[in-house]
């Protein structure tokens, strides 16, 4: 069974597509794929901004986002002949959070929040903060480009955080909201009244245990934080809801990135199903680091030949044949795994990107990946 071909250029060329989100397991080349797509789109004439989360240092340098300054900067060396442009930025989650706080509260209140130890823990290490802030930043970039009209970006490419599970990106706003808006927190803040009073025995027990575990100070910090944050919070929730709405609009499309390996494909399947369930638009699947060869000699034949050769006069030939045999096996294995994926999800379009001999460190390499992405396999 062959999967339908995922035509990357048709997505990049469609001016109705304004946001592309690349998701997938860690270590599958998500950041590289996002960067390659951004470069290709820019050189085809679109005004692109790429939001990267945690790029490899040399890739970041090649995009000119070596420092983490949380603002989009123009990428030098991109061919702008077609009228496009490319900006790149790297997410600083704490700074994004701080900016939101500062922008939406009075200076006094903002200072109180920023100084709060609980806020500091939340903004730098809470499990969902990075995903949440990536969403927040996406919302900001989108609003900024809408406001700029003709001069604004017409395509935002987002690289998602290296999440433990591919679902975190979609769940983060909900998770943070439910934490800050949760029942326990409300009980903690409000004296028991009305029907809540009936539960207060159990609750007091619970609260005192919490105090014992966490220490009294943090409970006080949390209370202070929530009180200061309350005015801001409605806005936060609303923004998160808006961004989620943006994600399911016809202007957004998702790309699932994977490699032809069991774990990565399992994660990809999980994400494809989740997107379908949430009615989020899935453009297709990018399979990175696929192996290929132009030499049509079977593994068994190559190994048999290698055995017959003289190791003294033809050591390199023997090694080359052995490597070819191993490569053939890898290719078979990958084909098997991809077939399995396609047999269970036959409508998911995909494009294959073959494995490269060296690391991606400059714009030329990104252009090359762009070509591989767009090529019909």
């Amino acid at each position, binding site marked *: 069974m062959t999967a339908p071909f995922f035509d990357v250029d048709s997505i990049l060329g469609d001016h109705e597509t304004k946001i592309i989100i690349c998701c997938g397991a860690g270590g599958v080349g998500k950041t590289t794929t996002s960067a390659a797509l951004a470069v290709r789109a820019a050189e085809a004439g679109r005004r692109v901004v790429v939001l990267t989360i945690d790029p490899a240092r040399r890739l970041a340098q090649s995009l000119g986002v070596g420092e983490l300054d949380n603002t989009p900067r123009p990428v030098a060396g991109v061919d702008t002949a077609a009228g496009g442009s490319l900006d790149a930025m790297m997410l600083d989650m704490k700074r994004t959070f701080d900016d939101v706080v500062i922008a939406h509260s009075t200076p006094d209140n903002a200072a109180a929040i920023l100084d709060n130890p609980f806020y500091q823990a939340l903004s730098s290490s809470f499990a969902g903060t990075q995903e949440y802030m990536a969403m927040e930043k996406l919302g900001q970039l989108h609003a900024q480009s809408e406001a700029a009209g003709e001069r604004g970006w017409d395509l935002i490419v987002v690289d998602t955080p290296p999440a433990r599970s591919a679902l975190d990106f979609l769940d983060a706003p909900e998770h943070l909201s439910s934490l800050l808006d949760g029942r326990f927190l409300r009980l903690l803040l409000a004296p028991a009244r009305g029907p809540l009073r009936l539960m207060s025995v159990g609750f007091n027990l619970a609260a005192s245990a919490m105090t014992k575990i966490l220490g009294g100070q943090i409970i006080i910090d949390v209370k202070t934080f929530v009180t200061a944050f309350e005015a801001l919070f409605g806005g936060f929730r609303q923004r998160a809801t808006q961004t989620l709405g943006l994600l399911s609009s016809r202007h957004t499309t998702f790309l699932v990135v994977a490699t032809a390996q069991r774990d990565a494909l399992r994660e990809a399947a999980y994400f494809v199903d989740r997107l379908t369930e949430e009615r989020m638009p899935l453009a297709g699947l990018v399979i990175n680091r696929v192996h290929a060869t132009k030499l049509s000699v079977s593994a068994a034949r190559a190994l048999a030949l290698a055995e017959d*050769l003289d190791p003294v006069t033809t050591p390199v030939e023997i*090694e080359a044949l052995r490597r070819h045999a191993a490569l053939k096996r890898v290719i078979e294995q990958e084909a098997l795994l991809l077939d399995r994926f396609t047999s269970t999800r036959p409508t998911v379009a995909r494009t294959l990107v073959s494995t490269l001999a060296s690391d991606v460190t400059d714009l030329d390499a990104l252009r090359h990946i762009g070509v591989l992405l767009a090529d019909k396999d």
Partner: protein
Amino acid sequence: MRSPRHTLHIVSGKGGTGKTTIAAALACALATSGRRVLVCEVEGRQGITELFGTSRLVDAEERRLLRTPAGGAVFGLAIDPEDALLEYLETFYHLGLAGRALDRFGAVDFATSIAPGLRDVLLTGKVYEAVRRGIKQRPNSYDAVVLDAPPTGRIAQFLNVHTALAGLARVGPIRNQADSIMRLLRSATTVVHLVTLLEDMPVTETEEAVAALRPTQIKVATVIENMVVPTPLDDDQLRSAASQEKPLGVPGWTEKLNAALTLEFADEAARTLQQRERHVRLTSLRLPIAQIAFDPAGIDEAAVFTISDQLRDQIRLEAVA
């Protein structure tokens, strides 16, 4: 029978380097005749049960996953922070009812969410408890425990439970618990293994993890280079092949076939040369290095045993008699 040299093995690595496979293989390598080894995972991915094609580990069960060819047994445990918190409350406060009440009010989720450090202490706390069972010869004790830990980017933060708790309780049982965990992690009982591929990013992350772990006084025992493609050729032969200096000549092959082989092997040779450079980079960390050969057939139970044999050959797992 010699006892294991270290009782707690912590395995970390960048995503995609195969750390879960290595953790499982290490558990198998430790599970020689009559030994019981526990392998724990803390990220809710169920990677270990997926690897062995068995059903998910739920509700803090410690289930036997397999018997090793060497006559030992490997058990699996998926540690969940909420289960760990409830168990912790039960142990230290005997909070049967209140524990349930906490859960009803969403407090467990609250506590583990507002204090990410607490989450890590709870996770490592459960590992600590499993290790202690062995030391104290309690029921269900294990000869060794292997932890499939979070990725290298987060490992130092994860293991440094002291700092994690800095903003939290300064006294009381959780503080004492953190102190005990830290003592165990710093003791000779515990070692960390960092899994890497011979690619730029994983090697960089390995270097960073070694630097980040140094101040914690937790010992890194081995750097494990995974999916290494061994070759008998020397650097000169590889360089010449990579630059396609002279075409390969398999006797009896057409010029076209030989040209295709030359081209294909040029890429392979270039990659091998790059891998050798990265190996040199890793040797400058001055840590013992183990190499695991790439298995073109993919990873399944049999492959795990093959890796386990390679680990036994390269890492000294048992104490000197």
